[in-house]
């Protein structure tokens, strides 16, 4: 009996470790393909991200100091951990805290290289962190107010999708996704194409295997972030998935119809309108005392 359970957990664990990067890889392949088509190009093959990563692993490993890669490993592990905890439906607040570790590690990694561009990129990333962290936490608080628990597993017992009562937070989350996916208009700390004033921002000094690990971690992160969107319609997984995919597509489109804005603009925008929206939504729930559990 016990071995059986363990086996089940083991299989689950393996699935959690293996499936997301596959999905993430395909997603980022789709991203590039769709972007190309939006620009009237053919674009790379779907598996191009995979080729990139394999290539990067085969490159020489160059660094500017011996310990910069430690941050990358930390980032990787904690992204995986936060995704793991999300899939294990654990405490939402803790997930975000763990996710913060990952991001902070990446930021500090960028700063630690001492290169001016990556440092400025990291500084800007801290600013975007300032912009998105509150929203994520508001999302959690909203969820808590609706379900009375911080545990994601409780969502399974709800009778209405979160989106019903958290529409404003959903809109806020769309903006957060833009920040997190490093898409225009908020791709000032680093961007997928290096045509920006900071070269490659935070990742300027990373190359070879380290960059490959960052890339793989990004795949996990893609799934993680879309997972957050998925939670908005937890009651029906199909709709949730569709919601996540639509969001993803929307992000790609937004990326292609916006110029990069300044971080100041973003900060002003998030700290007034976006946070305002979130607080309004939470107040609404508080005042009407809505519960969906």
């Amino acid at each position: 009996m016990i071995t059986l359970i363990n086996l089940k957990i083991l299989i689950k664990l393996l699935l959690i470790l293996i499936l997301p990067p596959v999905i993430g890889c395909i997603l980022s392949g789709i991203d590039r393909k769709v972007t190309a088509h939006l620009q009237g190009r053919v674009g790379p093959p779907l598996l191009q991200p995979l080729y990139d990563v394999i290539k990067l692993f085969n490159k020489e490993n160059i660094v500017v100091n011996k310990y910069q890669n430690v941050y990358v490993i930390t980032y990787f592990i904690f992204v995986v951990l936060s995704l793991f905890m999300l899939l294990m439906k654990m405490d939402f607040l803790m997930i975000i805290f763990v996710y913060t570790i990952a991001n902070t590690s990446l930021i500090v990694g960028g700063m630690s290289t001492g290169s001016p561009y990556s440092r400025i990129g990291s500084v800007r990333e801290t600013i975007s962190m300032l912009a998105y962290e509150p929203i994520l936490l508001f999302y959690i608080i909203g969820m808590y107010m609706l379900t009375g628990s911080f545990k994601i597993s409780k969502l399974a017992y709800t009778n209405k999708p979160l989106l019903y009562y958290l529409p404003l937070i959903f809109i806020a989350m769309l903006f957060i996704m833009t920040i997190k996916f490093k898409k225009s208009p908020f791709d000032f700390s680093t961007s997928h194409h290096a045509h920006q004033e900071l070269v490659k921002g935070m990742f300027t000094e990373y190359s070879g295997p380290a960059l490959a690990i960052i890339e793989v971690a990004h795949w996990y992160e893609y799934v993680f972030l879309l997972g957050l969107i998925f939670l908005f319609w937890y009651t029906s997984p199909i709709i949730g998935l569709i919601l996540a995919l639509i969001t993803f597509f929307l992000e790609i489109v937004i990326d292609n119809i916006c110029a990069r804005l300044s971080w100041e603009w973003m900060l002003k925008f998030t700290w007034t309108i976006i946070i305002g929206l979130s607080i309004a939504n939470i107040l609404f729930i508080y005042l009407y005392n809505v519960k969906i559990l």
Partner: protein
Amino acid sequence: MAGISKNIMSKSPWVVHVNCNSCNGCDIEFLACLTPIYDAERLGIINVGTPKQADILVVTGSANYKNIDVLKNIYNQMPEPKVVVAVGACACTGGVFHSCYNVIGGIDEILPVDVYVPGCCPKPESIIDGLIEASRILEEKRIKIKNPDKGVAI
């Protein structure tokens, strides 16, 4: 999968572009390779801005006394295996400017050049040819680095 493991490098050659003494003609033709009509990203080619992540160094224009330092630095900062592509007559030999006082000559005076793309300016097709050739050499170099003794096996 087998196909991938054979052509690891040539499937995603990332490019960094250095403009030395170029007259812009070659530069804009190189940039034109990335635009929808030629779309080098089809072949996995991305213009990454930083040498640290690049596999191919595309040099346009000849070397002069001020930019050789830049060129050398950029080359040194690239991880192995790496390939240098000289695009245009200037980069190959100095072109029409080869006898100017501030032109040292083609960039092969400074770096080991692997692919020469002739023309002034080369058409984007030529540049893409050059990049494809470069990615093939990249793969060769990778194999050479991996099996230092066995030599090239293709």
